[in-house]
């Protein structure tokens, strides 16, 4: 029944002074423990969030609920029982993937959210790819390029990091959709409908990635092993592409994983702006409709995605940089 709470880490946590023992557990177990812990924290947050304004029934039932409906909600959620009992029930429900029903549509909250997830994942995945494909060469150009390239490029990147996502988006719509009529200003499901959201979302990560590659290459440039490669007879190009750049990758990967949280936030805004039917748009729609069960489900699903990507990212880092074994927590 409890799929979320893995048993060994929970046991280790309950023992006093568990930390030293915790670090001796094998890495996959520790990772799972962190996952479970994070999701537990998120659920706890959601649990208390509803109760922040006093009567959770009002929040859960929606603003237009009649007193009868409120009572029904109270009964259904057991809101008159002790807090701790409610908490455990809540955890049990979420473990069974039961997030209640949408106030609007009546269907399962989780279901209506999961349906929109692939679209968002697609947007984020493509944006990540674009940010690497464009960002890495941009970073290289920033680092090794001639002066007349470096200065304007640097300025452009600074600007891209300062202007908020939605401002760029609005500008793009104005230019590409309204003025030039090249791309649809809203919608989802088609390839064209992905283009502008992707460009809008990707500008900031591209700038970040490029700057980071530049900075990493600065660090790596000092490294003696580049001199060794030259001493072996490697050409300058080979030294850069085969030795310098791969050594910048671990840092870039770590940054990409961190970037995910920006990408999700950005995706929410971008989806609303472009009426792109992803989980972000569902979340915002649900908030406007005061459909809290759906809000809860959406936040949880996003949480799971974040946790999974972090786990994957950690694993990838260990592959890319063999030194991460001892140093990592």
């Amino acid at each position, binding site marked *: 029944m409890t799929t979320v709470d893995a048993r060994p880490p929970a046991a280790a946590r309950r023992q006093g002074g568990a*930390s030293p023992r915790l670090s001796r557990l094998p890495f996959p177990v520790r990772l799972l423990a*962190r996952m479970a*812990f*994070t999701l537990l*924290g*998120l659920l706890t*947050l*959601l649990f208390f*969030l*509803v109760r*922040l*304004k006093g009567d959770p029934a009002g*929040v859960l039932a929606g603003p237009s609920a009649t007193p009868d409906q409120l009572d029904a909600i109270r009964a259904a959620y057991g809101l008159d029982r002790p807090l701790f009992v409610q908490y455990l029930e809540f955890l049990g429900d979420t473990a069974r993937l039961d997030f209640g029903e949408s106030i609007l549509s009546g269907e399962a909250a989780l279901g209506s959210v999961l349906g929109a997830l692939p679209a968002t994942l697609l947007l984020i995945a493509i944006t990540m790819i674009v940010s690497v494909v464009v960002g890495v060469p941009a970073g290289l150009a920033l680092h090794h390029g001639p002066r007349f390239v470096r200065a304007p490029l640097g300025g452009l990147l*600074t*600007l891209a*990091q*300062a*202007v*908020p*996502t*939605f*401002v760029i988006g*609005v*500008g793009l*719509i*104005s230019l590409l959709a*309204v003025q030039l009529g090249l791309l649809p200003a809203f919608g989802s499901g088609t390839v064209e409908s992905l283009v502008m959201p992707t460009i809008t979302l990707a500008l900031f990560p591209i700038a970040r990635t490029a700057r980071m590659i530049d*900075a990493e290459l600065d660090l790596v440039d000092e490294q003696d092993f580049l001199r060794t490669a030259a001493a072996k007879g490697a050409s300058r190009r080979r030294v850069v592409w085969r030795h310098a750049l791969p050594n910048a990758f671990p840092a870039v990967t770590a940054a990409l994983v*961190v970037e*995910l*949280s*920006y990408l*999700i*936030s950005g995706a*929410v*805004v971008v989806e*609303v*702006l472009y009426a792109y039917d992803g989980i972000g748009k569902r*979340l*915002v729609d*649900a*908030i*406007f409709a*005061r459909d*809290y069960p759906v*809000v*809860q489900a*959406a*936040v949880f699903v*996003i*949480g799971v995605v*974040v*946790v999974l990507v*972090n786990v994957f990212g950690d694993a990838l880092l260990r592959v890319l940089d063999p030194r991460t074994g001892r140093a990592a927590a």
Partner: protein
Amino acid sequence: MRTPDLRFWTPVTVLAVVVTACLLGPALVDADPIAQDLGNRLEAPTWLGGNGGLLGTDSFGRDLLARTLAGGRVSLAVGFGAATGAVVLGVLLGLLAGYRGGRLDRAIMTGADIWLAFPFLVLALAAVAVVGSDIPVLIALLTLGGWVLPTRVTRTVVHRLRGEDYVVAATGAGASDRYVVLKHLLPQVLPVTLVVWSFTVGTLVVIESSLSFLGLGVRPPTPSWGNLISDGTVYLETAWWIIAWPSIMIALTVLCANTLGTALRRRLSGAGLDPEVLS
């Protein structure tokens, strides 16, 4: 002859001008940001041929210069206020974590890691769904959005300083924890904190405008740069100036905050404070 550090003074000056202009808004412009003038809707700015005042009017005929300045008051208040709150909270936690060390340190740092991994905007949206988005609430919320960086930075600095001889000597001479922290550690932490504050202002202004743009931050009719942009999105074709000014203001503010932060960081690294701490 020491040339003035332009990278520092330019953003400071621009920011000062922006803040002053917004604060003095009503004194500068005699138009009311909320008063509607439906006979004068969607007028272009005078220098573009319309008769909408300096910056044009919006779909309700409201003067955009007044609205932009008024919106700036709100956005900057939230941004600066929340940044300050976040930094205060962060420094406190960082001092605790860095000075006490041990399990408290580990707990705070793990909490920071987990918090950072999660997209804050999503949590903020969920919170707004429940508690609404009055301005004090927004400030409190955004404070929670920015506490991690100051905590981390403070903790790193304190960690490093804790082992320094003069700190150990002070404790050995009988100084209480509070004395050591206030007299020895805090002065060293403050300069770095300033850098963090700078960057945080930029970050939080963006988050606030994103929330307001979505309609879940500052609610109309109170203007904020974010909801001004959202108002203007519909009129992109016909009255592009509506979104232009608030967009420029946001970009300018964030640019200045970032540039200022970078300049401060550079100054500090000259004084021996490790800039790597702030990456």
